[in-house]
């Protein structure tokens, strides 16, 4: 007895240290991800800001392209953008302004860029949200159905998905308008409606057009991810225990298949925001995307810069959130150890 006591005495120290490390590890993991987020955003802001310096010639004249380059106007723009100061000071002023909510002034609207953006934001967010709903519901549904029906059903859905995935959003928009607006007259082809159900009615076609590529993508990822899970032993065990097919799929297949589906969602959000530029213009929705196209058209570079920054930030942010949520869904991706 005493002998074993002697041997066991130093043992408790190790678990304590391990527990301490386990407690620190998630914090380190989160800190690392947040740090990487800030670093990426910082470098991205450098790229977006200094892109203007790629254009040769007088920056004041570049910013005033297409407008009367009167001496007063040139002076005003020089003062507003601090063009007479060194480049790094211009950058710091710009970055400081962005962090404090001062995004500069729009040349076209003669308003603060932040006000212009905020006015347009709701339409874009509603459009993207509705598209996300379609993508989740239709994509998951098609993927699950394809995975559970071997043979003809699977092949049919797979071929449909390959075709749907190859339809660019603007072609989908035109096709949907031709079929449901001009042909059947079920949905409007223009404008964003009055809010409430009317808004959703107006946004249905744009959201479908926006989402079609990603519906196909999510469906394909769901299908292959589920096919992989269906062959696993734990699914066989669950089935042989006599669980119903529905609960096996929901609890043992779909849950494990969520990882890859979640991974693509970062790409998805950025893609939706960018493609919304084309869709909003096609359907006459006054959101951020249409603002981006209009600002390029009207040579309003400050607004373009701001929107590019917003989209990049959204992409990086969503990717970080996905990285942080991943371990909660799949504990095998334990915080800090990403080996599976």
């Amino acid at each position: 007895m005493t002998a074993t006591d002697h041997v066991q005495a130093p043992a408790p120290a190790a678990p304590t240290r391990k527990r301490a490390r386990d407690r620190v590890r998630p914090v380190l993991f989160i800190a690392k991800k947040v740090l990487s987020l800030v670093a990426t955003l910082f470098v991205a802001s450098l790229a977006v800001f200094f892109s203007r310096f790629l254009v040769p010639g007088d920056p004041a004249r570049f910013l005033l392209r297409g407008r009367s380059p009167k001496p007063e106007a040139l002076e005003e723009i020089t003062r507003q953008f601090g063009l007479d100061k060194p480049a790094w000071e211009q950058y710091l002023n710009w970055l400081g302004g962005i962090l404090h909510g001062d995004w500069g002034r729009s040349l076209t609207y003669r308003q603060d860029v932040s006000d212009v953006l905020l006015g347009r934001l709701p339409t874009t967010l509603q459009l993207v949200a509705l598209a996300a709903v379609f993508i989740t519901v239709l994509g998951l549904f098609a993927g699950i159905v394809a995975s559970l029906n071997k043979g003809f059903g699977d092949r049919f859905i797979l071929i449909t998905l390959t075709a749907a995935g190859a339809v660019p959003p603007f072609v989908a928009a035109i096709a949907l308008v031709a079929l449901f607006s001009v042909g059947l007259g079920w949905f409007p082809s223009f404008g964003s409606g009055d809010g409430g159900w009317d808004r959703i009615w107006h946004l249905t076609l744009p959201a479908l057009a926006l989402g079609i590529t990603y519906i196909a993508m999510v469906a394909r990822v769901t299908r292959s991810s589920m096919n992989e899970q269906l062959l696993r032993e734990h699914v066989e065990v669950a089935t042989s225990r006599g669980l119903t097919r529905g609960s096996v799929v929901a609890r043992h297949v779909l849950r494990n298949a969520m990882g890859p589906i979640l991974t693509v969602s970062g790409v998805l959000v950025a893609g939706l925001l960018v493609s919304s530029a084309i869709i909003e213009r096609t359907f006459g929705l006054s959101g951020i995307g249409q603002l981006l196209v209009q600002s390029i058209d009207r040579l309003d570079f400050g607004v373009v810069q701001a929107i590019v920054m917003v989209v990049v930030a959204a992409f990086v942010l969503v990717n970080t959130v996905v990285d942080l949520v991943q371990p909660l869904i799949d504990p095998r991706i334990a915080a800090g150890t990403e080996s599976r």
Partner: protein
Amino acid sequence: MTLAIHLPQAGLRRYGSLLSPMAWGALAVAAVVVLLSLFAPVLAPYDPDYVDLNNVLAGPGGQHLLGTDALGRDLLSRLMHGGRTSLLGPTIVVIGSTVLGLLLGLVAGWSEGWLGKVLGRLFDLLFAFPALLMAMLAIALFGKGLFAPILAMTIAYVPYVARLAQSLVVAERSRPYVQAYRVLGFRTPWVVLGRVLPNLIPTVGAQSTLNFGYVLADLAALSFIGLGVQPPTSDWGAMIEESRGALLGGHILPAFWPALVVVLVVVAVNVIGEELSDRIGGKLS
């Protein structure tokens, strides 16, 4: 259970078994579109920009095989000439991004030190800029047309190729043949360019093929919203934009043909690209 034994077939039959019927179909579609576009000046029945206001929105058949648009221009001729601009852009982007991506990927994969890490970070950063967004930023800087988006998308697609090449090079580096060349004292550039690079080509080629479809769709979208190819130059995306008025009036065909061609080409390219990557994946596993 039957035991399947794979033996390479002799002669030309090997190439026949290399592709599935679907891939052959895709290849045929792509070839027809490319040839029709390439020889448009010879083959096109009409001048693509000839306006015939007496023959507006004519149906298919008769004098105009696919009909005419709202200005009476022959749709088939415009499609064929439009293919030249619509296919040229993605071709330049894919060649440019593949060459640049391969070079950067080789360097990043081969150098173990800081250079590889810095390049890896650079690829990560470029991934944060979606290609279409980068193209729009470039148009805001350098003006409308094809130059700015082609330049921007070449850069935007570099990380897709480079990241793939990097991971492949890392895997190749530890293989016996590379070790053998090193031991025998061959120079690094010779080993990398002469012996490692050829092993990357099939996999990178499959990725670049898929990229072609995405670039084609994005460039067409830019022309569609009026930021890319400018009228009267015919381009598939611009043709769809020009046909919107007719579409709302119930004339579907002028928008339908270019849309169909865009989708057909993108599907064909995707099928070929996926077939290629499946083949390579099958070979490796």
